[in-house]
């Protein structure tokens, strides 16, 4: 299973989408929740308003009823109208009753007409007063005539019920009628439903477009009132207990929520913030992310096509500039290192070649052979024997030598062989002295190093007119808590020239210096450097007598597997 990877673009886009989705959902949910909450609150408030209004109307109805009873049972003027034949007395009684009726409609706006009907045989009297609510005289007279007709009928059929509110409908209006009677006198009141509707709508004057509906309720209604939240309106309803009417008011939602417009401001704020976040993201995208992306792209293409070429990213962003510079420097360094390693390898090869070359110096053998020849001419058989033996051992050592470290004893043997050969070559002119502690014989040392130094002294320091000597001294020496052996080679020759000292003591040696002069020493120095690095030290100088002096300190290194 491969673990899926994402690019920064994908992550950013994903985050943005997620953020927007969460915000939009959150705001939407909040706003819907808030709206619903407010709607319910507003609806409950509206229902309260309706309840107050309906109970007010009910109270008015009850007052009207009481007023009517009062007029029927304790008003002398009614009796006067019933029993008197005096025109003036009757007129004045009528005026008095009319003013009562007038008072009622003026004091109570939930009624439009109040009336008294006295069906006198000679001339029935119908007294009524109507409020100025837009009822035209024709309608007014028609309703009253209807009532008179029904009341006249009632003597036989009793079609109108008493003491309760009833609805009467005609062509274009519905009336709520209440009446009662006592002793042949009827009185009552009526109001058009449209008037009640208007009154109810006025109670909701804070909300434009409130629509009121009234309908007659069943005898035993399930509920007296409440509210309902509909699609885009709120419906509140309350039953008038007195009239048995269910008053329903439908209020448009936006009217109810008129006063809670702040919520949109809040939503606008949040939306603005989201917009800002999105824009900020876009800007950071173009300011931050895109340069990085370009950087990565150029790094990628660079590593694929031109590993060593410096990358070029134009950006005002400091981090990008620094990173580009750093990467370019690192690339340059890596390239240089690669070259160095390559060169070092080349050098090693060359040192090895030189080493081989040194080991196979032909002229030394030729010299030795010519000496053996000279010895044979003078029949010095013993010397020849010794010379050939030494030469044989010498050659065997050289040919058998590898790059592995060898015990000091072996090297010293070889050096002694060489010195014997030289003593045989130059009788009485050369002496080799050796002062090495026997405990150091197991000390591991790269082969043909001491030999090279001794040979150098012989080759370059031998004077033909005096007794020459070379001294080798080795002793144990601790340097910086590291055990090691200090070798000192001193000769009686002319010593190193100033140029040679400078060259050999220089910290770096290159086989590619091109000069054959001192090539043996340089090769030794190179090999020691390869094997010991900086841990070994070799110092070239001239001693007091003018001879050369080489001091070489090698660390004790059992673990190092010499390769040279």
């Amino acid at each position, binding site marked *: 299973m491969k673990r899926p990877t994402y690019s920064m673009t994908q992550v950013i886009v994903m985050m943005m989408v997620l953020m927007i989705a969460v915000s939009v959902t959150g705001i939407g949910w909040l706003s819907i929740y808030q709206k619903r909450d407010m709607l319910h609150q507003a609806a409950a408030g509206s229902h309260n308003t309706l309840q107050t209004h309906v109970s007010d109307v009910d109270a008015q109805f009850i007052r009207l009823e009481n007023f009517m009873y009062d007029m029927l049972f304790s008003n002398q003027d009614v009796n006067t109208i019933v029993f008197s034949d005096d*025109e*003036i007395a009757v*007129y*004045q009684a*009528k*005026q008095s009753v*009319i003013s009562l009726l*007038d008072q009622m409609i*003026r004091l109570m706006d939930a009624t439009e007409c109040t*009336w008294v009907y006295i069906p006198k045989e000679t001339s029935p*009297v*119908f*007294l*009524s*007063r*109507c409020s*100025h*609510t*837009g*009822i*035209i*005289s*024709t309608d*007014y*007279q028609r309703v*009253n005539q209807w009532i008179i007709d029904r009341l006249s009928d009632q003597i036989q059929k009793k079609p109108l019920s008493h003491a309760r509110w009833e609805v009467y409908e005609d062509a274009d209006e519905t009336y709520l009628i209440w009446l009662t009677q006592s002793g042949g006198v009827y009185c009552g009141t009526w109001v058009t439903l449209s008037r009640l509707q208007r009154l109810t709508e006025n109670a909701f004057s804070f909300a434009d477009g409130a629509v009121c509906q009234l309908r007659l309720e069943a005898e035993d209604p399930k509920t007296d009132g409440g509210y309902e939240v509909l699609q885009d309106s709120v419906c509140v309803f309350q039953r008038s207990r007195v009239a048995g009417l269910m008053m329903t008011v439908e209020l448009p939602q936006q009217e109810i929520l008129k006063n809670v417009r702040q919520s949109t*401001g809040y939503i*606008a*704020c949040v939306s*603005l913030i989201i*917009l*800002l976040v999105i*824009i*900020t993201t*876009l*800007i950071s995208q*173009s*300011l931050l992310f895109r340069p990085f992306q370009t950087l990565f792209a150029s790094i990628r293409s660079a590593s694929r096509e031109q590993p060593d070429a410096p990358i070029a990213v134009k950006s005002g962003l400091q981090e990008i500039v620094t990173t580009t510079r750093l990467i370019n420097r690192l690339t340059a360094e890596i390239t240089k290192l690669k070259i160095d390693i390559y060169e070092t390898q080349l050098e090693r090869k060359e040192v090895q070649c030189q080493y081989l070359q040194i080991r196979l110096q032909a002229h030394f053998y030729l010299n030795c052979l010519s000496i053996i020849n000279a010895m044979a001419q003078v029949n010095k058989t013993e010397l020849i024997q010794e010379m050939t033996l030494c030469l044989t051992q010498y050659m065997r050592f050289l040919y058998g030598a590898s790059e592995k470290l060898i015990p000091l004893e072996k090297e010293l043997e070889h050096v002694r062989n060489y010195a014997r050969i030289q003593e045989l070559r130059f009788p009485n002119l050369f002496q080799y002295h050796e002062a090495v502690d026997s405990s150091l014989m197991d000390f591991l040392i790269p082969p043909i190093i001491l030999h090279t130094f001794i040979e150098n002294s012989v080759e370059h320091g031998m004077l033909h007119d005096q007794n020459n000597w070379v001294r080798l001294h080795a002793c144990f020496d601790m340097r910086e808590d590291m055990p090691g052996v200090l070798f000192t080679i001193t000769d009686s020759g002319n010593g190193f020239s100033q140029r040679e000292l400078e060259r050999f003591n220089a910290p770096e040696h290159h086989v590619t210096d091109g000069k054959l002069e001192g090539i043996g020493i340089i090769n030794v120095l190179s090999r020691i450097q390869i094997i010991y690095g900086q841990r070994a030290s070799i110092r070239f100088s001239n001693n007091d007598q003018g001879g050369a002096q080489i001091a070489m300190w090698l660390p004790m290194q059992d673990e190092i597997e010499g390769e040279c």
Partner: protein
Amino acid sequence: MKRKAIISCVVAIVLLLAGLGAFMLCSGNGKQPETEELPTLEILTAWVNAKNFDGDKVSEALDAYVAPLIGAHVKLTFIEQEQSWLTYNQYAVSEDMPDAFLMFQAGYPRMMYEAGKLMPLDDLLAQYGQNILATITDKTLLRIHTFGDSIYAVPNQLDRATGLCVEYRVDVAERFGLDMSGIRSIQDLTAVYEALRAQTDAYIPVSEVGYTIWDPLSDNLGVLMNLGQSSRVVNLYETDEFREMCELVHLWKEKGFLQSMDSSIVATNVFTRSPEFFSRVRNYNASLKYVDSADANEQMECILLSDVFTHTEHLKRASWGIYAKCEHPDLAMKFLNLMYSDPGVMNLLTYGIEGVHYEFVDREKGVIGFPEGVTLENSGYAQFRSYFYGNEFLTYIWEGYPEDLWAQVKRVNDTALRSIAYGFQYDATPVSREVRQCSTVADRYTSLLLNGIGDVDTLLTQLNTELKAAGIDRIMAEKQRQLDAWLAQMEEKE
């Protein structure tokens, strides 16, 4: 390209932040008053047609128009004309009053003055009411609501002449072939009503009978007969004119021409609103038939049955006063001043908002009518009450009015007879007890007489006997004395 995009992004952000800041700033400061809150004047007037009433809209429009002119907001309060007495009773005993208010019955200014609710206006008129003074050039008219030495209400500038007239529905007259051209006197109407009744029962011939062809000298207790041309104070209830009126009412009542008062809508505009009434007998005024035609949305005609004349009481019909404790009487007076000089204010109050409640039929001649789709039935401001407000001569001519209506009215105003007591202010205090008793008696009997109840002769005899007992002679003597003194004073001035 990239840089541009970044710059535009940054600019957008800055703008957004600025916008957000401004939004917050605005919503934070929204509730605070702008700079200096202007005071609000409450102006009381009345409505006559409550259907779809747009009073609030008109009030807002008026405020928008007036506020920069007078430096105050105005808020109109409309009361129902029919119930106005309730409102004024309330005002008489309470301190909850509008700053400036219309009084559209002759008795209201005195009632308000006696209740201490009116502010003396002389200084205010001199200072802020220049246009009122310039409009009401007649000093008698200007001082018509003078109590003590101060003016307490300014009368509206409207038709001033009255008389006896019969107003009828032209359509009905034509339909039933009623000849209205031959009518010369009120008695001639009987034949017309008989002709109508002979053909149909669907119409009630007369809705109301009520007229004044004498100078009532404020209370009808001692009057000047003959259109106020006689200088002798007489008892109205002993005159032939009054007896004639009573007899006619009785006759019509007997014949069933009158609306039964038993079961009726008692309202000022019941005649225009109820198409079953054929006519009414009432006091004349020059613009009556036009306003009523507009109100009823059918043609009304008016036959004048007497000469036109004007008397003091008639001038008091409509006036404006300022509440005694008004906090900004100067601003209230500035508003009244506008009503007498600014057609914009007058037309808003009379006809509502242009384009909503009316639009021009002929802009040059100032003729207006309903906008398309608006009718008398659905208009929110079909009031047509130019005479409720300061100077009705500044208002437009409603479609159907004669184009020179206001010129006609002014001509009638100027040529009408004047009662010789024109401008006479009667002071009833020396005989107040008699006035109270006589009023009670007169009210009781006139109610019967003018509703056709009982026997005219008997009732008139009883009435006059009781009036004498209540002291009407003393009242008439006092009136005569005051009038003579006033007439002498006038003569001296001349």
